[in-house]
């Protein structure tokens, strides 16, 4: 599959004097679907937030398409990235949040149109057509003029996905996107993600507690524990025959629920 679209190397992250991530090395290939599992507080969210440029690593490098995300060259020296540098790179990354973060003052079609309309000198009509198509794709074609407050949690999350997809990212990050939903709404959101995964060309990193789902769609699962990737492998191997004791414990706790 060629060179990685995302590469983490020796990534450390601390908040104050708490070391949250202690040396993360990770390659994501173009189109690869990776599920990130692990106990709460193990640093899953932090890993993907650094790629979305919402959090800066304490040390180490992240490459996106071979380009250094958090550092840039200036007069022959590596210096921390400025806004412009981050802006140029993060167009390849999209993110769906646990709590949707839709813009409440806009209709859902406006939510989807905003960024592409601002980003390029696109024709507004063309952007609108695309936005409507995207909302149809997530099953909300009849709701385009509603406001986020008028939707259920599952519908909001599908809008959030449509909005992120409008930017045509090469890597999409999902941070426990079903954990704020009522149980009966989880299925409709997972269904949309499953369809996206089948389309194939977009890489995905999914932080999730839905083990069956991970087993189903992921090419690879990473088990994060106490700031390191403790174990990784294809889902059939990792979930069925976990090697480390910690992963065994973690999975046992899940199966009990």
């Amino acid at each position, binding site marked *: 599959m060629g060179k990685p679209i995302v590469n983490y190397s020796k990534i450390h992250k601390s908040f104050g004097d708490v070391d949250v991530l202690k040396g993360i090395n990770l390659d994501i290939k173009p189109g690869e679907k990776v599920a990130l599992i692990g106990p709460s507080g193990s640093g899953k969210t932090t890993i993907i937030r650094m790629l979305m440029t919402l959090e800066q690593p304490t040390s180490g490098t992240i490459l996106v398409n071979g380009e250094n995300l958090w550092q840039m060259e200036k007069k022959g020296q590596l210096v921390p990235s400025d806004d412009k540098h981050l802006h140029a790179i993060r167009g390849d*990354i999209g993110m769906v949040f646990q709590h949707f973060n839709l*813009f409440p*003052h806009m209709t859902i079609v406006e939510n989807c149109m905003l*960024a592409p309309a601002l980003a390029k000198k696109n024709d507004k009509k063309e952007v609108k057509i695309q936005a409507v198509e995207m909302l149809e794709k997530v099953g909300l074609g009849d709701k385009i003029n509603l406001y986020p*407050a008028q939707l259920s949690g599952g519908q909001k999350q599908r809008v959030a996905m449509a909005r*992120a997809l409008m930017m045509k990212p090469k890597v999409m990050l999902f941070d426990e996107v079903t954990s704020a939903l009522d149980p009966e709404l989880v299925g409709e959101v997972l269904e949309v993600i499953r369809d996206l995964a089948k389309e194939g060309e977009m890489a995905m990193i999914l932080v999730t507690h839905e083990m069956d789902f991970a087993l189903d769609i992921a090419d690879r699962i990473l088990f994060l524990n106490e700031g390191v990737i403790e174990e990784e492998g294809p889902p059939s191997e990792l979930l069925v025959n976990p090697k480390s004791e910690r992963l065994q414990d973690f999975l046992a706790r899940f199966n009990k629920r």
Partner: protein
Amino acid sequence: MTWDWGVFFEVIPLIFKGLWITIGLTIACYLFAMIFGFFWVFVARIPSKTISWIFRWIAEFIRSTPPLVQLFFIFYAWPMVPVVGVTLNPFVAAILGLGLHFSTYLSEVYRSGIESVDKGQWEASTALNLSTKQKWLKIILPQAIPPTIPMLGNYLIIMFKEVPLASTIGVVAMLHMANDYGAQHWKYVEPLTVVALFFLLLSYPSALLISKLEKKYNRRFDKKTISTL
């Protein structure tokens, strides 16, 4: 003394003229305060700790000293300051003095509005690769400002009632006119009553309007009130 209806009706048109000056001055001061209020918000966000700290203290200082002192300073003391001192016309001095004073209050209103916007809104804007300017103009301010409109309105009314302070540096508006009339005719009660009535006539309906706005904006993003179905 006896109440003289003749005087009362005689001063109404006279003071009515002053009313327009008072209203004009209020609007000018308020516009200045609204714009300058953003200045304080902006400088408080400058990454340099020292600079933002200095400006925070200047704003704090302006907020905690009486506006009358500031008016006197700008009008009487500033012209005597070497190099930067200039003599200002009373109207301009009033706009600067009262506008500056209230800008520090409005900046607090803006700040509270901005802080009330969920952190996730910033993060989603970053994830969609919006520029800093786009984040502010399209996402943050459109959510931060509407809920503060009632508070902003309250400050407009408070400012309207503070504007007579400008008569102390010679701005001839309602109060000043009433006072002059009183001095000439030795009749103070009627003209000052008219002034009070005019203030009441404007302040009270404005206050009602603001409480209406308050209800409207509190419901703004609610399901039921959105009619664009």
